[in-house]
């Protein structure tokens, strides 16, 4: 304790990249559990991972910036359609298709962000719905490009790195998706703790205060929307690659609303919250919908009410509090 003579404030215990490594390991471990325990459900788990990208993306704008949106599927859908169309027109390399989805999602994110973040509160929410519906309408009408209500089918991507072909058990798709998720998650962990990410959280807390320290808010939110669009676009492209079809459901209002529910369930403002919400909601839906196809939505509603009443900040919040307590105790000793 001799090095604190100048600063007085003790340094946080900081092992570089510890958080990132932990994040990667946890996701890989969860993936391994899925792989070994549910080998017949890999197609479902792959879809889950695709949706996880969309929820993470939504978390960036809603959880970290406080932007209310019910049209976030637009970014996901545009990524999915772009990757699907590119594949049908002859781009078969999966990594290239991901890049296509990423770029399309980014562009869509920047456009939506430029529109939606101009406003606050209810106008913002309504505008987000309008943007989502516009994209859904376009996907339906431009049937020469998107296949209209039949959707795009016949998406047959080539082998990953020229080695691993996609199989009917979704093994390749699952591992490929999981790998992309790990990379994205680690990058996002860095991103949300960066000065840029921290400033976004500040803007969410009090935008007038942010202005009063000299921040121009609008451009930042648009950039954040672009990043979120990139993440959603990757998810869309992954889903297109792994399922081989892209339908109108990928841009639907229901999709937008569902991912918002997942985010609230898990806890907005935490990357882990987004992930937890996706996993719990999707698995719950998968099991309950199979057991009772008519009433499963009722049960989802019930689950959500319970969580909002007993853990209003999402399931991740108690975990975070516990962790903070644990760490404080550790440093006090």
């Amino acid at each position, binding site marked *: 304790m001799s090095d604190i003579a*100048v*600063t*007085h*404030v003790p*340094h*946080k215990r*900081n092992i570089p990249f510890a958080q990132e490594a932990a994040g990667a390991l946890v996701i890989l471990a969860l993936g391994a559990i899925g792989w070994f325990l549910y080998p017949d459900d890999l197609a479902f788990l792959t879809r889950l991972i695709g949706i996880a990208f969309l929820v993470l993306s939504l978390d960036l704008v809603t959880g970290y910036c406080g932007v209310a949106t019910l049209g976030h599927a637009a970014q996901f859908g545009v990524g999915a359609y772009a990757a699907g169309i590119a594949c049908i027109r002859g781009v078969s390399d999966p990594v290239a298709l991901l890049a296509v989805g990423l770029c399309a999602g980014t562009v869509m994110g920047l456009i939506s962000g430029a529109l939606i973040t101009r406003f606050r509160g209810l106008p913002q929410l309504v505008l987000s719905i309008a943007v989502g519906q516009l994209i859904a309408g376009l996907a339906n009408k431009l049937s020469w490009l998107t296949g209209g209500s039949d959707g795009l089918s016949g998406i047959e991507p080539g082998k990953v790195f020229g080695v691993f072909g996609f199989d009917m058990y979704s093994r390749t798709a699952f591992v490929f998706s999981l790998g992309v998720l790990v990379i994205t998650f680690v990058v996002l962990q*860095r*991103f949300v*703790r*960066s*000065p*840029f*990410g*921290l*400033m976004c*959280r*500040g803007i969410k*807390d*009090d935008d*007038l*205060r*942010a*202005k*009063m*320290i*000299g*921040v*121009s808010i609008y451009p930042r939110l648009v950039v954040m929307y672009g990043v979120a669009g990139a993440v959603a676009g990757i998810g869309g492209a992954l889903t297109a690659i792994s399922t081989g079809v892209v339908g109108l459901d990928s841009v639907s209002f229901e999709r937008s609303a569902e991912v918002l529910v997942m985010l609230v369930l898990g806890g907005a403002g935490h990357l882990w919250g987004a992930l937890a919400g996706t996993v719990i909601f999707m698995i719950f839906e998968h099991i309950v919908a199979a057991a009772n196809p008519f009433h499963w939505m009722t049960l989802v509603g019930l689950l959500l009410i319970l969580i909002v009443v007993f853990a209003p900040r999402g399931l991740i919040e108690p975990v975070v509090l516990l962790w903070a307590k644990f760490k404080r105790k550790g440093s006090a000793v």
Partner: protein
Amino acid sequence: MSDLLEARSVSRSFGGLHVTRDVNFKLTTGDRVALIGPNGAGKTTLVNLITGDIAPSEGQFFMGGDEITGLSIPDRVRRGLVRTFQTTRLFANLTVADNIALAIMQRKRITRRFFSSSTELPEVRAEWSEILSHLGLDRLAYRKVVELAYGQQRLIELAIGLALHPKVLLLDEPAAGVPHDEAPRILEAINRLPSDIAVLMIEHDMDLVFKFAKRVLVLAAGRLIFEGSPDQVTADHEVRRAYLGSYADARRPT
């Protein structure tokens, strides 16, 4: 002595209500000015006009000779015009360190960085920990702002102002709501402000005003009715009538 901030015949009305009328004043290097006036005199409106939160109906503001009337709030902050709020406005869910680090990083133009871990950047860290230990808040660095007592939050409001390295600092009732025994700490922090910046303080607590100000502006019904040293203010008949009331009588040497 250069003019850091100048208001030239600034007026503002809301509908038919004239909240600010033909206000003129100058702040120069090293100025320590108190702005006083009865409730509803338009003090906070004047601060909002200066920062660009609301636009004047007439008149202009200048900083160092350049007109700033049309500039946005962030642009004015970047020129060194910084305020604190009457009711604390902080990033409540962030830690104390993050609150101040954001101000520092914004000043240093590094909040566009996407991938370095933020608060612990060495050059930023050195600065916020120094500000915090100056204010006696070093032990609270990693606490969330919402968890702190109000008096401590007022000090953080001040700390953010300091971190922005202002040329002109507007303090909107810095001691409002602070428990009486903690008020000296606020004054101490204000007195330690760099001597070359201009400070304009709105304050009701006359003790604080007399300890701080070298010059006092009195605002009543949107008009500046008096400007002078603290002693002249208490001696002035009109000011006493408009605002000070019995307080001035109490201070008169007997």
